[in-house]
């Protein structure tokens, strides 16, 4: 699905001492499966995810997504991709505070109508949010429920790629594993990229990519976990 060649990302280009967030490596990602990206802070894992999801443009190199060169897309094409084919779970849930859980999910839908609302309710139910919670605002939901609502939002368009940046960072262990179960389940048919510091939650991942100082230090297939 993704073919990454010599990807380089340099921050502070104008400064004498450049910061290499990604220092030119190659990587191929499959069409489906749970791929974990692990590494210490500043290793470039979030930057890699942002480049793959078109939120950032790499300084150099190429990213092919289903044969399409992402670095050459126009803004509107990148928006379309993010809207229709990618889903996002951010480190902070970024739920809209004044919207109900259902509205927070449907706001990301590419289509509108009753079917979308029903789909959102189905997703929330599947993630353990009962009918009582559907109309609650984020402030009235627990941390786990918020993150599961954010995952439902990311899945509402049934995206081909789901990017999850530290999706369990703010959760206790029990909730963290519950969230990972949802992502693993989704990864059976789609590609799920999970960035984390916590190796334990990647149990059952299909592939683990370790990063260090903007480079790949190891790529391990699922058997390794």
């Amino acid at each position: 699905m993704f073919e990454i060649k010599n990807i380089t990302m340099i921050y502070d280009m104008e400064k004498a001492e450049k910061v290499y967030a990604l220092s030119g490596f190659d990587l191929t990602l499959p069409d489906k499966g749970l791929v974990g990206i692990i590494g210490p802070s500043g290793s470039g894992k979030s930057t890699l995810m942002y480049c793959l999801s078109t939120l950032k443009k790499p300084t150099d190199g190429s990213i092919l997504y289903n044969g399409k060169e992402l670095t050459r897309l126009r803004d509107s094409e990148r928006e379309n991709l993010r809207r229709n084919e990618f889903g996002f779970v951010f480190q902070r849930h970024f739920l809209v505070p004044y919207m109900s859980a259902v509205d927070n999910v449907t706001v990301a839908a590419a289509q509108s109508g009753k079917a979308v609302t029903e789909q959102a309710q189905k997703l929330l139910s599947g993630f353990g949010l009962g009918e009582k919670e559907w109309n609650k605002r984020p402030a009235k939901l627990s941390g786990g429920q918020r993150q599961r609502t954010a995952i439902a939002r990311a899945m509402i368009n049934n995206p081909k790629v789901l990017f999850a940046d530290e999706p369990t960072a703010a959760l206790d262990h029990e909730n963290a594993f519950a969230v990972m179960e949802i992502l693993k389940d989704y990864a059976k048919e789609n590609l799920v990229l999970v960035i984390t510091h916590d190796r334990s939650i990647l149990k059952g991942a299909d592939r683990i990519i370790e990063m260090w100082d903007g480079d790949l230090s190891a790529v391990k297939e699922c058997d390794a976990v």
Partner: protein
Amino acid sequence: MPQKLSALRYIRNNKRRTAVLIVSLCLCFVLTMLTQFLLSTTEESFRSLLLGNGKKMQFIDLAGSSYGLDVDNLSYEELVPLYQEKQDTLIDNLNTYEGVKAVYDAQILYECLNPVIGQFYFELPLVEKEEIPIFLEHFGAEIIQGRLPEHPGEIVLDTATMANRGYGIGSYADEQNMGELFKIVGILDCDYYFGCGIPSDEYTCESMITVLSDGIDDMTVLLENEGITYREKYDSIVDYKRTTEILEKEVTDVIAVSTQFIFIGIIILLSIALFIVYTTYLRDRHNEWCLYCSIGYSRKTIYLSILRELLFTFAAAIFIGSIMVAVSEIVLYYIMIQPNGLKCNFLHTGALWEIFCSYALLCGILQIPVRYALYRIRTIDAMDDDLY
């Protein structure tokens, strides 16, 4: 159907915030329209009085020199009969003109009209008992209470003037200045501010040539035909042309200036308040828009949703404001304007246009914080860059 960012979603979930904006705009609308409405009672009452009466009845008071009399070399005793002779001739001649129904040498009693702002004294002719029905017929007036004047010092007045002055049958007209000289003996149903009566035996009022006519706007034309040149400094004429000038200079223009000052004041205050409040609201939604941008909504889509919210707010304010204005105007009319014998104008198209234009301007001003908020939108990766 492709999903759009619904404006109603924000409005539905932020009723209090939206209500603050709607109420501010609505109050501005109501305040402006009601100010205009209340001031219109002054303008419309004066308009009815000055233009309506000016069309139906004219008054002429000429100096002796305007008749061609050598006032400097004539004694008072010599002048009076000569003046009277000239005036009688003029009255006879004016009677022959088309459109002139009748001309009298009448004493004039002044009565005052008090709208919300200002006051205006208008002429009530005092004539012979037999001549009163001619005046009533000319003005389309009918006696609805009391009786017609029969004795010296008795007068009748229309319902509006009666209400405005707080008179009843048996009251004395302008009692404060004239004392108990002119007693009101009847009330007229009349479309004009009008009244007439019989001169008092005890006091002689100033006399003027009183012309009952239809369609003669400028009495100076008739006087020119009679060889008399009107001189503003020495002569006095009350006709449609001059009452129109009075209305424009002393009423309409003055009210227009006051209204403009009030309106501009309201709009400036509203603009400042809305700008501050709206900027705060926009700032609170920064993260929301960053999220939208990150998940694939374009800035244009976000901008259009903000614009729809803003337009909904303005439209709701105008709709609610219109209802409030309509109800307030009706209530004010029945509790304040009609009981005081005043006229008013319910629909102020000029003010409406001014409000629409100023709201459009306000909408334009609010684009400044909106554009700035859009400029500040970043995708979540950029927000993370700021955090770390």
